[in-house]
């Protein structure tokens, strides 16, 4: 059985990648499985300078999911390159850096720091941040801005694959995917979290200090699958499926609608060895789908 996937210049031993913000820098999970067995690891969102993130409370459990408003707390890109990257098995597993910035210029500078790093297999661009130079609206909600940021990152990526992570909080996500493609993106990943909110009737306060936060987990899987389906039909570049994936079966659903690989996020909180278990479960789940390779499953959805 062949679990390998190839796309955007990446060769992964399987399509299971851990999603940004849910797997730390990978090192936190070394006790729970061999990181080399994962297809890839997208590390915690990195900014040019260290960020303290949002005040507490930052997370709320919701039915079949959770809300988070962490605020990209991270030690900064230089600390990542210096302290974390050398400890990761980057020769065996694709380490994908997730980039967070608030202006096109800053995205470019961040790319500049990472482009020369041998241990970084690809760059994933988080366009869900507010753009400080255009009134605070998120880059990800404006197709023109998505193109601009993608071009800026691509320009300085020195050949490293650039993946643009798309927000579902838009009218037409396919349009955003095409905007990333137009900017030269090598792939898109979707979906990022859905904007949500929770309230405590006893305190009469929002349950998140940030008031609103991103919804993730199995609750959003149908939305994510629909978005991936639409985007796969709208662009020629590869698509990475993300959103509520908690089993190998879920992963294959995204691959059937056309995803080249998937990212596993909130499931890492159900149990910390979840991503490793999904890799273990893939072969027998592929048998259920009567497939010997991931390649033959990809995009093989039969539409009525």
């Amino acid at each position, binding site marked *: 059985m062949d679990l390998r996937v190839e796309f955007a210049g990446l060769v992964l031993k399987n399509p299971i990648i851990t999603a940004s*913000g*849910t*797997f*730390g820098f990978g090192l*936190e*999970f070394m*006790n*729970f499985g061999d990181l080399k067995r994962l297809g890839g690891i997208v590390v*915690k969102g990195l900014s040019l300078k260290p960020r*303290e*993130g949002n005040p*507490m*409370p*930052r*997370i709320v*459990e*919701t*039915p*079949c*999911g*959770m809300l*988070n408003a*962490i605020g990209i*707390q991270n030690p900064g890109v230089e600390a990542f390159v210096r302290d974390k990257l050398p400890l990761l098995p980057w020769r065996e597993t694709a380490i994908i850096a997730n980039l967070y910035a608030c202006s096109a210029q800053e995205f470019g500078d961040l790319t500049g720091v990472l482009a020369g790093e041998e241990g970084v297999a690809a760059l994933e661009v988080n366009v869900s941040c507010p753009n400080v130079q255009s009134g605070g609206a998120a880059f990800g909600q404006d197709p023109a801005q998505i193109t601009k940021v993608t071009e800026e990152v691509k320009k300085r990526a020195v050949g490293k694959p650039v993946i643009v992570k798309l927000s579902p909080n838009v009218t037409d996500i396919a349009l955003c995917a095409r905007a990333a493609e137009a900017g030269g993106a090598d792939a898109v990943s979707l979906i990022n979290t859905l904007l949500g909110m929770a309230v405590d009737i006893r305190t009469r306060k929002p349950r998140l200090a940030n008031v609103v936060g991103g919804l993730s*987990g*199995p609750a959003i899987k149908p939305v994510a699958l629909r978005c991936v389906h639409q985007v796969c039909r709208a662009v020629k570049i590869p698509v990475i499926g993300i959103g509520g994936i*908690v089993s190998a079966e879920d992963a294959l659903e995204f691959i059937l609608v056309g995803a080249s690989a998937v990212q596993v996020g*909130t499931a*890492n*909180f*159900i*149990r*910390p*060895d979840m991503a490793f278990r999904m890799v273990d479960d893939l072969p027998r789940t592929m048998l259920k789908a009567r497939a010997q390779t991931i390649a033959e499953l990809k995009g093989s959805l039969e539409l009525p």
Partner: protein
Amino acid sequence: MVVRNCREVKVRELRFLGVWEGPSDFVELTLENPGWEGYRPGQFAMLRPKHWGLELSWGRPFSISRADEESVTFFFQVVGRGTERLTRLLPGDEVIVWGPLGNGFSAPEETPTLLLAGGMGIAPFRGYIERHPTPEFLRLVFAHRAGIDSYPYQMMKDKVRAEAIHEKTPDDLPTIIERIEAEVAGAHGGLVLACGPLPFLKTIQQAAKLHQVRAELSLERSMACGVGACLGCVCKDGQDKHVQVCARGPVFKADDVHL
């Protein structure tokens, strides 16, 4: 000194052995032995019954109350959906457990050590007392609201010097605060270890600073991962930086945490 735990941490699926449901929703839950004889009291574990399905997204963090060759015990109060469902486990059910996590309390030999427990905060001290090398140097002061029979207090009183202070009405609170402050002041030269509600910990932190007493505080937080990855359980440390309670705590030196 707060010593970091270096033992190997794994995910295990443990058989549920039994539950004791005390008054006021206090619960003692026992699972088969995960091989944690060497855990450090003050450490915690994440628990998630195998059959939970997807409705609840996270495991639940609990301080390890005690562990021996046969079993591991957790003591907690039913406060929400997760803890309520944990009380409904049946013999033979399996629970996904990852731990022991975080650091633990210092346990210096032959050092006068005052254990200050507030309510459910008594949990880690049961194991602490059992495995301390010189228990004759320990003294427990336990402030509680529910009836004393709700807590594993008596079995601790049999092993170390202990006193319980009952908060019967909110009017008792000022007296209790004064008493706690006096206890901390009197611990000068020794060590104070505390676990309990936030206002209780704040009182102890302030008194420890005022009287220059060495103290360690165990914090409680909602957690998603328990392993330092999600950054959902942070507090501010002495340098005003966000640090994970799960990975950098849950036990902090009183002068290195902002409550």
